[in-house]
């Protein structure tokens, strides 16, 4: 751990990840958060991007509250070692007190290398950030599988590194900011130890255990055909459809889609159960789900004991209305 001269370090640097010239959405989220923190510290926000094809980047960030945007052009499409060298140089020049990096695949490979390069602290996957009375960054994240929260400080080293996953922070909203200065540099940085041989676009994973949002069909679903409506809801929400054992028993859903003790254990961000009563066996498969919304006509259903948002109602009335609302919004 290297003790830094705290006064020498100020400002917040956001690493902006780009792929094929497009800024990753987490960039705007981190800039938004950086701005919020910067107001408390009365300091500036900088952004840095590295890679080939950066022509459009300044346009995509034109409305951001950045003092300066650094664009480091390299030959190499992303490799941690090359980007590390570039960003290290940027940090040495700017001496930001805080560096925020998106918790993407790229970011999570880059961040620890940078933190070690400066022998400073890194907290990964922060769920919120604050500033304490002394102007230090308070880094908050879950630990032990999400059952406790930890509040962490990097008191003596600089910069204070933090990674944040996409979808956690509020992105920058349009506002009247001073025009940012764009600094473009061609970097002749390579590393022969690493060669990218190929890059192929891929489809996202489909299994119910991969989904962040799950709609779950239970015994309350009366006919096999009614599952179509639930499937549509799941699709509109950007998630998947799963079921309790009852419907798998009936042959309406496949065993791979079953949740429960003799099926899959899932832990999506959101789960909407429709007509699921909540047997012990079912609930054993959903313990780590963060938000359970349960729809059932029986107010004494077992599932209401663990649902975060228990809704006593008829899925046949509620689901069509949800679909209607979602479809309307998408046309606004």
């Amino acid at each position: 751990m290297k003790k830094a001269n705290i006064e020498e370090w100020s400002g917040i640097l956001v690493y902006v990840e780009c792929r094929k010239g497009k800024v990753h959405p987490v960039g705007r989220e981190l800039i938004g958060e950086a701005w919020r923190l910067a107001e408390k510290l009365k300091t500036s926000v900088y952004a840095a991007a590295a890679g080939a094809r950066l022509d459009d980047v300044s346009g995509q960030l034109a409305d951001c509250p950045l003092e300066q945007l650094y664009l480091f052009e390299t030959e190499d499409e992303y490799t941690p070692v090359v980007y590390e060298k570039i960003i290290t140089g940027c940090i040495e020049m700017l001496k930001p007190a805080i560096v925020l990096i998106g918790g993407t695949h790229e970011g999570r490979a880059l961040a620890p290398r940078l933190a070690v390069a400066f022998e400073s602290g890194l907290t990964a996957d922060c769920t919120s950030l604050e500033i304490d009375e002394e102007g230090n960054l308070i880094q908050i994240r879950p630990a032990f599988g999400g059952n406790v929260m930890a509040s962490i400080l990097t008191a003596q080293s600089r910069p204070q590194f933090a990674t944040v996953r996409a979808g956690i922070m509020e992105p920058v909203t349009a506002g009247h900011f001073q025009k940012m200065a764009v600094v473009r540099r061609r970097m002749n940085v390579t590393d022969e130890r690493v060669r990218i041989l190929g890059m192929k676009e891929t489809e996202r994973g489909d299994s119910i255990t991969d989904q962040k949002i799950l709609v779950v069909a239970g015994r309350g679903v009366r006919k096999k055909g009614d599952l179509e409506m639930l499937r549509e809801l799941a699709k509109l929400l950007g998630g998947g459809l799963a079921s309790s054992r009852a419907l798998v028993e009936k042959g309406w859903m496949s065993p791979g889609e079953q949740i429960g003790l003799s099926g899959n254990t899932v832990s999506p961000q959101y789960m909407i159960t429709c007509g699921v009563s909540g047997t012990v066996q079912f609930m054993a498969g959903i313990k780590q789900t963060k938000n359970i919304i349960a729809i059932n006509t029986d107010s004494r259903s077992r599932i209401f004991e663990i649902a975060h948002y228990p809704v006593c109602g008829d899925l046949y009335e509620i689901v069509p209305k949800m679909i209607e609302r979602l479809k309307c919004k998408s046309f606004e």
Partner: protein
Amino acid sequence: MEPGKHFPRESGSSMKIAVCMKQVPAVSEGNMDPKTGVLLRAGMEAIVNVYDLAALEAALRMKESIDASIHVFTMGPSKAESVLREAFAMGADEGWLICDKAFAGADVLATSYTLMQAIRAVGDFDLILCGKQTTDGDTAQVSGGLARWMDIPHANWVTEVINISHKEINVRYNMENSTVTASMSLPCLVSVEKDFFIPRMPSLKLKISGKKKTVHVLTIEDLEDQDKKHYGLSGSATKVRKIFPPPRTKHQEPVTFDGDKAAEYILSQLSDVNLF
């Protein structure tokens, strides 16, 4: 052990692979005393981090196609020895327990530094393998930090080792929307994705013979840097200010709404989902 290299590389010898493995509490549901915020670890079983088993599996598979010796490193208290015993039961060759009071309380920075010192003290390794993350701590950053301390390139969350030779390794890994194949020259570090390296079951024969193997212990005196200030809590750059229970939704009485109002209510709960 004399500080310095125990197994310096000789040319033409078998490949030396280091695998970093950690012992963690079995139950990810941390039991916490809500009044004091202290974690109640008593009675919790200690097991090998499942992600690290995948790293060991990756090493064992490589050993099937290339002459290699697998050294497992684990940093922890003396009971972490069971990690090495389990590794022997799967086929690891040597086990190193990095154990010293000075190492306790380390964050990502100090942990990766300690691992680097320990690995260097034992020898020149061609390849270092790590699991993607741990079930306690969960930060997935030690592997990258270790690679930087050792000044070697690294690839994280590798799903396949396409080819391995004495000079280089070809790997495949998934980024958010793409699959990448890359080639890295050795020495380098690779962290692996759990689901692509399903660990083999320990064999009875190896489990029994593994009980008789010697576990080597590395204390601070075996390392080149013996300055306690660089390790453990003092060597850490981050400190935990406090631990507190997560915001838990209290048990709610079921709300009764008609179709449309219920739909509105539910959709409003999906606040951070990009619905539109």
